[in-house]
């Protein structure tokens, strides 16, 4: 764990300015097996200290790749100089940030598994696939862990020593259609915690691997979707990416200031009454979130940010500065990826709330449409227009699942598409393996129940 060399530097904070001083370590471990060979076998440890000073509506920031008391002093001085430069060249003339009550949050330490833990586990899964999935033309296993450990002291608010580890195994499989066209499918297993705690027994994943292979075999005989506006059941993974990409980003206050569609929708209906959406801090629906955040990098104690309540847009996600500007309360959304990154408004665990419907009833209710299960990427616009790649799905004909789909894409405009939601399942599915990209990467959780709705689907 990081040694606290920065708390004592609070005495150097400039009076009248909001100051954050952060020491941070990011570690990453990864192993990739491609066709049975280890093609990546990497470890990375990045650590350092940074300071950010807010005065008169302008921020100054500085960082050094060194964890020492001297480095802390240097970045404090440089950050103050940068804030002064900005105020001299582009005066902000804004009041000081409202102060927050003092506090301190400390999380448990984590340990560091040896590289052999990753290589052995990846090898065990690869051996199983090689033996039990005979029709593959290619297989890849990617075992990875990343973690952020942060020591934070602030001029006002909550000081913290936190750590957020997560680890995953990605399994990629490729087969060929009878015509020789490659088709691919993958799944990521894992979640919060270090690799050795998440992955103790390779055999525990064999059943999931069998199911992935079975789906790929269905997909190699799959069909193109019929392009156009269609009734679909979005599985929980798709609902999660919709919550994050198509809604979440538009309600980040910095993007609202940049002209996002949410800026003119506050207090208005943006979804069916069946839809509520929250950016959860650390606990959701009575359980620990996939990637819990207890305090953000501005010293704000984290709590849930309610975004949509029964179809009405009720709030945005904020930093302390944007919350002051909008006259709202910050909920702890200001997060930084590396020690050398400044806090930005980021999501944490963004999800649509579950409803009362059963998934099987939802499928049975569709005469002609699609059940969409897996995605490999998603993007959205500040207008709310979104696009998600679909890697696994099925036709629905007369209330029953039909043939599998080949890769396709769905698109729509979030605040229009969410108004077409007329059934919501009672089970929430979470996903947390990816990174959100917004100047810096950031681990986030996203999730939701299955939704029945209408979207545009691409075909051929």
């Amino acid at each position, binding site marked *: 764990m990081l040694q606290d060399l920065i708390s004592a530097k609070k005495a150097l904070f400039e009076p009248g300015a909001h100051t954050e001083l952060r020491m941070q370590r990011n570690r990453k471990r990864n192993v990739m097996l*491609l*066709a049975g060979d*280890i*093609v990546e*076998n990497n*470890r990375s*440890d990045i650590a350092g200290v940074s300071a950010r000073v807010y005065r008169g509506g*302008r*921020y*100054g*920031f*500085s*960082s050094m*790749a060194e964890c020492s008391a001297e480095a802390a002093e240097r970045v404090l001085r440089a950050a103050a100089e*940068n804030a002064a*430069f*900005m105020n001299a060249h*582009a005066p*902000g003339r804004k009041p000081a940030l409202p102060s927050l009550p003092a506090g301190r949050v400390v999380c448990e330490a984590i340990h560091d598994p*040896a*590289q*052999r833990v*990753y290589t*052995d586990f990846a090898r065990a899964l690869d051996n199983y696939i090689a033996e039990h999935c005979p029709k593959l*033309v*290619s297989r*890849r296993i990617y075992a990875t862990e990343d973690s952020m450990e942060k020591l934070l002291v602030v001029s006002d608010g909550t000081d913290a020593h936190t750590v957020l580890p997560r680890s995953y195994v990605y399994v990629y499989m*490729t087969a060929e259609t009878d015509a020789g*066209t*490659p*088709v*691919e499918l993958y799944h990521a297993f894992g979640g919060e915690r270090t690799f050795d705690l998440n992955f103790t027994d390779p055999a525990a994943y064999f059943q999931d691997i069998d199911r992935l292979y079975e789906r790929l075999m269905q997909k190699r005989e799959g069909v193109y979707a019929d*392009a*156009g506006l269609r009734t679909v059941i979005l599985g929980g993974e798709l609902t999660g990416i919709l919550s994050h990409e198509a809604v979440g980003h538009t309600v980040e206050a*910095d*993007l609202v*200031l*940049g*002209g996002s569609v949410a800026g*003119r929708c506050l207090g208005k209906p943006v979804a069916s009454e069946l839809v509520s959406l929250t950016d959860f801090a650390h606990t959701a629906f009575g359980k620990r979130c996939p990637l819990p955040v207890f305090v953000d990098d501005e010293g704000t104690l984290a709590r849930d940010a309610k975004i949509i309540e029964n179809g009405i847009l009720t709030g945005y996600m904020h930093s302390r500065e944007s919350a002051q500007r909008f006259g709202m309360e910050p909920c702890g959304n200001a997060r930084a990826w590396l020690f*050398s990154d*400044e806090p930005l408004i980021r999501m944490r665990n963004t999800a649509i709330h579950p409803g009362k419907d059963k998934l099987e009833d939802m499928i049975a209710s569709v005469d002609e449409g699609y059940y969409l299960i897996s995605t*490999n990427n998603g*993007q959205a*616009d*500040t*207008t709310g*227009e979104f*696009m998600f*790649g*679909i890697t696994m799905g099925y036709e629905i004909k007369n209330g029953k699942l039909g043939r599998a789909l*080949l890769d*396709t*894409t769905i*698109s*729509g405009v979030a605040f229009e598409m969410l108004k077409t939601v007329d059934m919501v399942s009672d089970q929430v599915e979470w996903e947390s393996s990816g990174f959100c990209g917004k*100047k810096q990467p950031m681990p986030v959780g996203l999730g939701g129940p299955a939704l029945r709705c209408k979207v*545009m689907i*691409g075909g*051929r």
Partner: protein
Amino acid sequence: MEKLEQLAQRVLDAAKESGAQFAQCVVKETETHEFNMLGNEFSLMRTLFDRSVELSVLKDRRKGTISVNSFEDEALRKAVADCIASAESAEPDDAWEFDSEPRDESFTEGPLVCDAEGLFARTRELAEDIAARHPRIIIEELYTEHKATRTVLKNSAGVSCRTAEGGYNFTLTYSAHEGEKASSFYYGETKLADLDKPFIDCALIEWELSSVERQVDSKPLEGKFTGTVLLAPGALFELVLSTVNWNFVGENALIDGTSIWKDKLGQQVADEQLSLRFAPRAADVVAGERFTDEGYRAEDYDIIRDGRLTGFALTQYGANKTGGVRGGCTGWCPYPHVPAGGKSLDEIISGIERGVLVMRFSGGEPSPSGEFSGVAKNSFLIENGKLVTALTETMISGCIADMLKTVRAISSEVLRDGTCSLPFIAFDGVTVSGK
């Protein structure tokens, strides 16, 4: 530089003493100065002092790699031990290979000291130029920076390289607004060797701003047709070149055999108008790669020449695995250069009966065979040789491998943003669908 060199040598010596038969160490120091604007307003100034040490070792034909950013003795000792342990956990693989021809090289390029006042002035000027010339544009984010990096690469076979490189860059994200109407957002990054020109006059910034401003009035396409898709340089990179790089000529696709071009070296894979070169040393590239991840001197090389497949994006490891030839540089679709064509953009548009001009593509990852579908962002409908209207909620779909053979025209205008040189290219036979 001497300090970095001594440190690299120290790490190499420690790796050899720990049992590595081969070691390569890359030590880097970077200083960054950055200005940020959010929502048309200055928000932040950053100064970053970074460094890193990356060590790769081969022990008994097993490879391990570690990167840390501490220069402290204890941290480096631990890094060497962890790297050796990583290698020991891997399987032996004869394909690992680094440059073993001794050489000693030094390069210096670009301004190594930041002109902070000059950078701030250019940043403010860009915001003022946009406000004056394009009043409907809102800057969502603008980051401008100067970065200076000193790098030393040394390996135990006698390769020794030093680079000192500096340059500016800016990343601009914006959208157009009028009342309740708004365009899709658009973004681009530009690298510069100096601050000589106003930022708005660099790359295709002015054309892009004007186009996005016109997209404030956009509407969904009705129906579906097969027509011409004219890809602007950014969309060409996102959709076509990325797929070529990853799915068709990339190392993973070749090693696992899923590339549909794996047996097509020397064959026609694209229209003869089309060539593609990865060119880190081209004159229009700012601070391009000097040495590859395996220590070889970085060089320009052809992927496609006059429509014929001439090379794969392989490292020496990938070349050894597949029996192929190593590519000249490393990275993700690195420094792509596509030669300009003979027609202007206006001439190309005037010859299109029905199609779309696409500035940005937002789509699912194309399948290994190159099948794709996605949203044509920041796009215009073309009918009877004219841009008719800006579009929203419009999808395009097709197959990249097929599209490459249906090139209708390549523009004389090119995007030069310090990392690439890319024209507009029109492809026939693409499906365009709306509501």
